[in-house]
C-alpha cells in the first residue's frame, strides 16, 4: 500500500508539473483517490514538489473537503444552513444517523460512509440539500435520506442516486443533476440571449482602452458584494507593471443564501466566459482562471466542455477571432471548502496552492495578484454584465437601475416564501416589492446580503436594493413571524466562527466571544449590560479585523440588536444580586472534585 501511495503521488504531482503552486489540484486528487491526505502522503507530496511537509499539512488542515483522517468511500455532507434548518434538516439528519449508526463527524467502521455537516452549499431554494461526494441531492426528506443510504449500499455508486433530472442544463448529460434552476424572473441583462462570440467580436473591433471606457460609461459595479467600479479595477490592472496579467472569475459563491452564480454557471456559462475574454483583452491578460467552489464540482465537466467549444471556435486560444496577438485561455481552479476563499486575496492564495489566508493590502491584486502578476478578480455576474454592455451599449445599460447602481441585479431568494429562486431585477427596487414578487409570507425579518449583510425589519421594507441603500451580493433570506432573530444571528455567528481563517485576533477570538454572549442571552442568563457588551465587542471586531470577513462578521448581532432590540430586551434581566449568572457553583464544584479525586466536605449537599 505504501509503495502504491508513493507511486500514485509521484504521478499526480508529475501531472501537475511538480509545481507547488498547483497544490490544491494535487491534494484534491490525493484526497479523492485515497479518501485522505495521510501524514505519509504529505511527505511524498512535499518531496515531489520540493516543498516542506508542514506546508502541505498547513493546506490540508485548512480546507474542509481535505483531511488527514480517513474518510469513507461516500462522504455525505448535509447542509446545516439556517434555511435548511427551517426546512426540517434536523429530521433528515436523524434519518441519516439511524440508517448509518453513526453521528456527524464520524465514519462507519466498514469505511463506506462518512457523515458531515457543511455550510450553505447554494441550494437554499431547494433545501434541505446534501452532497454525496460531488453529487448534489436536493429537497431531502427522511424517506429520501433512507433511500439514499439503501441505494448506496446496494449499488455502490452515487451516480445512480438521481432519477429525476432538473430543468435546463441540469439535465445535460455532463451535469446530470437533480438541481433546479428556479428562475423566477428573467431580466434584460443576464437572461437576455447573446450568441457566443458576438460581444467579443465587437470588443475586438475597439481598442482595449475603449472597451474599458465603455465599462466605465455603463457605470458597472462589481456584483460580488463590495460594488467596486469594474472599469476602474480594469484600468488599474492594465496600468500596473508586469508582463503577465491575470483575469480571475470568482465563482466561490459561499455567502449563505447566495445561489445565483450557480444558475449562471448552469445556464449562461458562455456569457460569463465571453465577459472574461473581453476582460482579458481590455487588461492585456493571457491567463484566465475560474475559481469554482468545491460544492459546485458537479458543474465542472460541463463547464470544461463549454470551454472546449469556445477553443474550437477560436473564442479562446491564440489570435482570437483573427485578432493578431490576442491570446487568452481559461482554466478552472477547484476550491476545497472554505468560505474565506471568496475573498479575493484569499482566493488568490488558494490559487497559488496555499492556505486560504487573505493577503495584506497594499499591494492590491490589481498591482500584485496571482503569482505576483497584476490581477483583476471579478464576480461571475459582473462578467456577464460586461458581455452585454459590449454588445448592447453602455448607454443601454446605464439607463437601467438607479444612478449609483446601474443595470440589473440577480437575487437569490429563499426562506419563508412561496416562490424561492433566482430573480433578475432592476437595481432600486423596493424591498417590499421584492418580497411581494417572491411571495413572502408574513415577512418579519429579512437578511439581505447574507450573514455579512443586515437583518432588516418592516421599518426598512420601503428602502431600495442598491449599493447605496440596502446592498446585497445576491442573498435574500426571508423569515416570518415564527422565527427568532436571535437564533438567526446565532446561526450566522456559528458560520463565521467556523469559517474565520484564524489569521487575526479580533475575528478568530472575537467572534467566539460574540457567540458565547449571545448564547448566554438566549438561555435567559443575560443582563441589560450584555447588550452594550455585545455592541462594544462587535465594534472592535468590525473595526480592527484584517479582511472583509471579520469586518462584517458582527453584523448579524449588530443589525439584529439595532432592528430587533425588543427581542433581546425580552430575554435579559437586571442582575439584582450581583452574582455572575454564568457561574454555576455546582458545576465548578464537580470539576474541582473530579480534579482532586475526592468529595468536598464543606459543600456537601
Amino acid at each position, binding site marked *: 500500500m505504501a509503495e502504491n501511495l508513493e507511486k500514485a503521488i509521484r504521478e499526480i504531482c508529475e501531472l501537475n508539473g511538480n509545481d507547488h503552486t498547483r497544490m490544491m489540484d494535487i491534494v484534491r486528487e490525493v484526497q479523492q483517490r485515497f479518501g485522505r491526505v495521510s501524514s505519509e502522503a504529505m511527505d511524498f507530496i512535499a518531496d515531489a514538489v520540493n516543498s516542506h511537509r508542514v506546508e502541505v*499539512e498547513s493546506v490540508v488542515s485548512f480546507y474542509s473537503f481535505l483531511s488527514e483522517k480517513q474518510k469513507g468511500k461516500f462522504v455525505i455532507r448535509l447542509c446545516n444552513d439556517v434555511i435548511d434548518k427551517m426546512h426540517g434538516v434536523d429530521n433528515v439528519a436523524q434519518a441519516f444517523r439511524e440508517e448509518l449508526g453513526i453521528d456527524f463527524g464520524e465514519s462507519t467502521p466498514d469505511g463506506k460512509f462518512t457523515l458531515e455537516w457543511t455550510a450553505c452549499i447554494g441550494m437554499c431554494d431547494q433545501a434541505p440539500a446534501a452532497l454525496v461526494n460531488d453529487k448534489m441531492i436536493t429537497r431531502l426528506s427522511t424517506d429520501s435520506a433512507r433511500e439514499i443510504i439503501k441505494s448506496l449500499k446496494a449499488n455502490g455508486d452515487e451516480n445512480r442516486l438521481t432519477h429525476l433530472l432538473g430543468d435546463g442544463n441540469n439535465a445535460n448529460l455532463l451535469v446530470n443533476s437533480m438541481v433546479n434552476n428556479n428562475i423566477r424572473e428573467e431580466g434584460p441583462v443576464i437572461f437576455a440571449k447573446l450568441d457566443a462570440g458576438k460581444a467579443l467580436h465587437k470588443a475586438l473591433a475597439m481598442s482595449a482602452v475603449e472597451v474599458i471606457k465603455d465599462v466605465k460609461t455603463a457605470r458597472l459595479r462589481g456584483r460580488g458584494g463590495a460594488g467596486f467600479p469594474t472599469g476602474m479595477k480594469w484600468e488599474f490592472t492594465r496600468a500596473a507593471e508586469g508582463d503577465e496579467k491575470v483575469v480571475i472569475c470568482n465563482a466561490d459563491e459561499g455567502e449563505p443564501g447566495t445561489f445565483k452564480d450557480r444558475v449562471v454557471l448552469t445556464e449562461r456559462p458562455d456569457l460569463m466566459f465571453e465577459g472574461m475574454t473581453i476582460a482579458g483583452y481590455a487588461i492585456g491578460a493571457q491567463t484566465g482562471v475560474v475559481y469554482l467552489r468545491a460544492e459546485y464540482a458537479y458543474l465542472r465537466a460541463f463547464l470544461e466542455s463549454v470551454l472546449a467549444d469556445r477553443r474550437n471556435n477560436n473564442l479562446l486560444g491564440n489570435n482570437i477571432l483573427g485578432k493578431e496577438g490576442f491570446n487568452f485561455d481559461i482554466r478552472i481552479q477547484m476550491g476545497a471548502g472554505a468560505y474565506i476563499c471568496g475573498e479575493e486575496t484569499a482566493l488568490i492564495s488558494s490559487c497559488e496552492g496555499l492556505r486560504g489566508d487573505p493577503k495584506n493590502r497594499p499591494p492590491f491584486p490589481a498591482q500584485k495578484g496571482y503569482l505576483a502578476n497584476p490581477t483583476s478578480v471579478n464576480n461571475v455576474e459582473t462578467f456577464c454584465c460586461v458581455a452585454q454592455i459590449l454588445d448592447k451599449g453602455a448607454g443601454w445599460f446605464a439607463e437601467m437601475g438607479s444612478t449609483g447602481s446601474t443595470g440589473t441585479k440577480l437575487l437569490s431568494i429563499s426562506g419563508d416564501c412561496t416562490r424561492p429562486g433566482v430573480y433578475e431585477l432592476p437595481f432600486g427596487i423596493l424591498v417590499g416589492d421584492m418580497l411581494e414578487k417572491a411571495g413572502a409570507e408574513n415577512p418579519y425579518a429579512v437578511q439581505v446580503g447574507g450573514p455579512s449583510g443586515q437583518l432588516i425589519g418592516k421599518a426598512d421594507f420601503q428602502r431600495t436594493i442598491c449599493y447605496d441603500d440596502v446592498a446585497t451580493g445576491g442573498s435574500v433570506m426571508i423569515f416570518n413571524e415564527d422565527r427568532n432573530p436571535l437564533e438567526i444571528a446565532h446561526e450566522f455567528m456559528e458560520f463565521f466562527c467556523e469559517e474565520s481563517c484564524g489569521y487575526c485576533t479580533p475575528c478568530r477570538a472575537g467572534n467566539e466571544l460574540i457567540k458565547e454572549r449571545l448564547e448566554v442571552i438566549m438561555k435567559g442568563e443575560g443582563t441589560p449590560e450584555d447588550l452594550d457588551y455585545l455592541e462594544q465587542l462587535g465594534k*472592535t471586531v468590525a473595526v480592527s479585523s484584517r479582511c472583509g470577513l471579520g469586518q462584517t462578521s458582527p453584523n448579524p448581532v449588530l443589525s439584529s440588536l439595532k432592528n430587533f432590540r425588543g427581542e433581546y430586551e425580552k430575554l435579559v434581566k437586571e442582575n439584582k444580586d450581583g452574582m455572575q449568572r454564568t457561574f454555576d457553583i455546582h458545576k465548578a464544584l464537580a470539576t474541582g472534585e473530579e480534579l482532586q479525586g475526592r468529595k468536598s466536605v464543606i459543600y456537601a449537599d
Partner: protein
Amino acid sequence: MSDKIKFTIDGVEVEATPGQTIMQAADEAGVYIPRLCAHKDLLPFGSCRVCTVMVNDRPQAACTQPVSAGMSVESETEEIRQIRVNLIEMLFVEGNHYCPFCEKSGNCELQALGYRLGMLAPKYPYMFNKHDVDASHPDIYIDHNRCILCARCVRSSKELDGKNVFQFVGRGIHKKVAFNSDTNLGATDVSVTDKAIENCPVGAILKKGVGYSVPIGKRMYDTQPIGSDIEARKATAK
C-alpha cells in the same frame, strides 16, 4: 532630504521615507505604536491588530500600511486605546496565561502591553481552550497555551534562519503552530540558537535550563514600560 514626505500622528508632524510603513516612520520619530506580531527584523504580518490606527478616519494596521504624504494618523485616542485593550484581552482569554508563574513574566510583550495599556482583569470570559505542550527537544519547549499566533517563529525560521521549522495548521479558533516533522519539535532541524526561538514575544517558545537566570523583578519590562526604547529616540531626535 527632498524625497522625504510629511504626515501627522495625533496632530504632530512626522517625516518619513516613501515606502516605509506607518510603524517604521513612527519608530524613527520616537512615537511608539503598540504591537505584538511586528518585529523589526521581520516582514510585516498584520495578525495581532494591536497596532490599529485611524488613517484619515479609516482603521488600518500601522505595521502594514505604507505612509503617504499628508495622511492624518490617529493613534492615542481613547477609542483606539479601548480597541487595543480589547484585543489584548482577547488574546489573554483565548490562551491560558498564568503570568505569575510563567517563565517569561517580565520579559513578555503581551504582559507588558497589558500593563502599558492599563488592562486589568479581562472583561471577557476565559475560553479554557485545551492546548498541548511539546518538550521533546533537548533545549527548547513550546507551550501552545501561551501562543498568540503572531507567526514570529514561522517568519523568523524562514526569513532569518533559512529553515522552515514552523507553520500554521487548522483555521479559526483551532489554528495552531505546527512543526515540519511528522512527530514533534524534537524531530525537526530547529536549534536553540535559531532566531525563531528568540523572537517569540510570549512564553510559548522557551529555552530550557535558563528560565530564572534573571530573577523576576529585574527583567526587561519590570524596570520600564514596553516601548520606552522607541520613545527614548524622540529625545535624541530633537
